[in-house]
Structure formats: C-alpha cells, structure tokens
C-alpha cells in the first residue's frame, strides 16, 4: 500500500513542529541554522517526515541523510514537542536517535541501513528519494561528516569553487603581466 493512503502519513503530513503561533517557526529556524532557503528547508522537513514514516514502518533500522538528520536534531531540541506530542500522538512509538560509535564495522552497518532506507523509501512513496536531500554514499559518509559549526562573526566563508576560480584568474593575470614585461621590454 502506498504510504500516502495511510493514517500515519496523513498525521505526519499535517503535523507542525512546535507552537502553532510561534513568530519564528521550526522551518524558519531550520533554514537559518543551515543557511538554506525557506523552500529548501520546507522540502527537508517533508523528507524528515518521510524518514519518520519509514522508521515506524520499514521493519528495519533506518539511517537519515545529513540534511534530514539536521531536521531530526533540531526537532529533538524541541524536547517537549518531540517526546510529549510527536512520539506518543503521531508515531505512537519512541523514536530514539543513535549516533554511530565509529569504526569500520559501524560504517558498514550505517551504510547498509542508509541503502535499505532509500530502498524502503522508493517502495513506500513510489519514487526514488530526491538526490539533493538524500545524496550519494560518498557525500553522505565521506563529505558530510566533515561539517562543523562556525560563527560568521569570527571567520570568512568562501565557496571552494569561487576560490578556485579566483586563483585561476589571478594566475592568468600574473602570467599575462609577466609575458608583457618580458616581451614588452
């Protein structure tokens, strides 16, 4: 049966994390903390709900993508909402968060869970997970874990591509200047 036809999905789809009258909503906070657009944060929130659906129904342990994990982390900080409303009323089960203990065995276990989660997603929702929110294993297990908190008050953040482009441009400009000096006398 498609997930969309289930009561659980209907409840999850309609669920709003945090107080309804909050001036700064859960989705807005998710966008700000991750520097996402409001539209992207809203999509991640939907994927988080799909992940929760799978956690309850897939029949195997599930592993989120990094983006979905950020939504889960943030939801866990709304502890009253998470433990007193969401788990008992919507999931009707306790959904615990378990970070990896590290090491190659754990890495294999979490890779297998991630792959199984994506396969169950496709069966439940009738489409493959969007790859900008559920990325490749390389992105998920090699690149994304490099993330850490920074404060823009203390550091300057530059996209790596822009730095590479600026470096190449500067190199070409220097080469042109050197050539001008040599041949121009």
């Amino acid at each position: 049966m498609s997930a969309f036809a289930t009561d659980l999905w209907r409840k999850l789809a309609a669920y709003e994390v945090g107080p309804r009258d909050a001036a700064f909503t859960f989705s807005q906070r998710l966008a700000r903390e991750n520097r996402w657009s409001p539209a992207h944060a809203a999509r991640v929130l939907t994927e988080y709900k799909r992940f929760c659906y799978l956690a309850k129904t897939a029949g195997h342990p599930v592993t989120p993508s990094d983006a979905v994990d950020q939504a889960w982390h943030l939801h866990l900080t709304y502890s009253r909402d998470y433990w007193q409303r969401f788990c008992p009323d919507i999931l009707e089960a306790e959904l615990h968060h378990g970070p990896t203990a590290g090491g190659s065995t754990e890495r294999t276990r979490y890779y297998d869970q991630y792959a199984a989660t994506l396969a169950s997603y496709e069966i439940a929702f009738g489409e493959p997970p969007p790859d900008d929110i559920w990325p490749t294993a390389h992105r998920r297990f090699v690149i994304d874990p490099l993330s850490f908190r920074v404060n823009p008050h203390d550091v300057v953040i530059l996209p790596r591509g822009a730095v590479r482009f600026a470096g190449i441009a500067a190199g070409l400009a220097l080469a042109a200047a050197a050539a001008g000096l040599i041949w121009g006398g």
Partner: protein
Amino acid sequence: MIEGFSTYSGSDFLLFYAVLVVAAIVAGVWVPTLLRADGAERSVQDRYEAAFLAGGGKRVAETALAQLLAEDALAPSGERKVRVIRETAAKHPLEKTLLRKPLPFGLTETYKAIEPHIADIKQRLVQQGLLLADSQRMPLRIVSVLPYLVVLGIGWFRRAAGVAEGEPVGYLTALMVVAAIFALIRFVKLDPRTRGGITAVADARNISKRLKTAPTTPEVGYGVALFGTAILAGTPYAELHAMREAARGDGSGGYAADGSDSSDGSGSSDSGCGGGCGGCGG
C-alpha cells in the same frame, strides 16, 4: 568547384577549411546515429548483460567483483587484489569461475578468467538485437569517417597547390592533422549497440537511478553494471573503485596494474563519525 579551392587566398581557405573540419566532426557523430541498426525494443534484466551494454567487457568484470564483494564471497587482499573467502551459492557460471580461483587476483586476472563468459554474453546480446553484429560494425565505422576522408582529400588538394605555388602550408597541415586524429578516434571508438541497446540501458538507468545513490547488498552488482564503480565511493566496497582507478591510471588502458605497487589507493577516508544516526527498528 574543386578548382576554386586553389584560387582562395590562404587565410580565406584556412577559415573555410576549419569550418569543414567542424562539419566533419558533427557529421561523424550524426551520420552513424542515423544509420545505426534499430535492433529490438526490450529491457535488459541480467546484471552481466546490462554491464556489457553499459560499459563493455571490463564493466562485466567489475560487476562480478562488486557483487561478490558485497556478498562477502570475496575480500580485498592488498595490492589491488581480492581473494575468495567464502563460496556462496553463486548462480551465474561467471561467478562460479571466479570463486574457484585459489590465489588472490586483480582486475586483469578477473577479466582474463571470464573472457569466455563475456564472449557468450556478447553473442546473446547480438541475438537479442541489443548489440551490433561484427559484420555490421565495419560499415558503420567506414561511414563514420567518410566525412573526414572528404575533408582530408580537399585539404590534400589545396596543400599540394599551395606547395606548388611556394605558399606557407603549416596551418593547413596542422588542421589536417587535427582532422586525421578525430577521424582515427571516430574509427576506433564505435558505440557497438543498436538503437534498442542504447534505449535499454537508458531505460534501465532511469528506472534504477536510486542505485547510483546507495545500492543495497543484492543491488550492488546491478548498480555497478549500469553506473560503473564510481557509485562505490563512500561504500564499504570502495576498494574496488580504487582498484579500477589505479588500473585505469597506469597508462596501459587499464587492467594491468594488479600488484604493481604496495599502495591500496583507497578512495575512502576514515570519517570517524561516518555513520550518522540510526533510529528505531520499527
């Protein structure tokens, strides 16, 4: 008309000739696309047939290693090799052949060991109308390079006229060399699939695009068959991708680097907290 070429000024003819070379490159791609045999409209399910259609015989070897690694029948054995650690209930004769190998082996040995199976797969694909028969390939190669031969002929004529007049012909010769190199590549690099074969791979990739992200254990072989070993980066089977990259990077056209040095060339890194988070078991 040909007479007219020799009366062009050198720079005018060079510009004209450059346009001809570009036209030959376009025609070299377009003409075989038009003339390619239709073949049959059918899907491809078998992972080794899919591998051959998507990436040729070497992809078949990579697919076999990926699937057997995922099933824990093989394990990395250092120096870009794998060894049999467990005889699984392998169904495919090609897998059985590999599981009988007593010593560690690399990609080159894998390919050599399963060459007869690859020949069978190729024959089946021809019979199914997904692959061009050998007899269909040469005419397509020749048609693909015909535009280049015309362009090179015109260049040769103009060059001879230029030499006779004592004009400089260096740039024209350089353009002709470029055209000849493109012609050679076009002749050697022929897509051996029928239209049906090309469509079958495109459809299979579209239906199974999730495998590009993270295939489950039973899907690893089929994922590699369709998308190559690059999908293994970041997975527990990343060593195979490293083996393949090392073999490709040795300049031998691949598959000759087994054990040539002691680097394992692993494409993955120990990410410490690599797993992220589990959840409830449902």
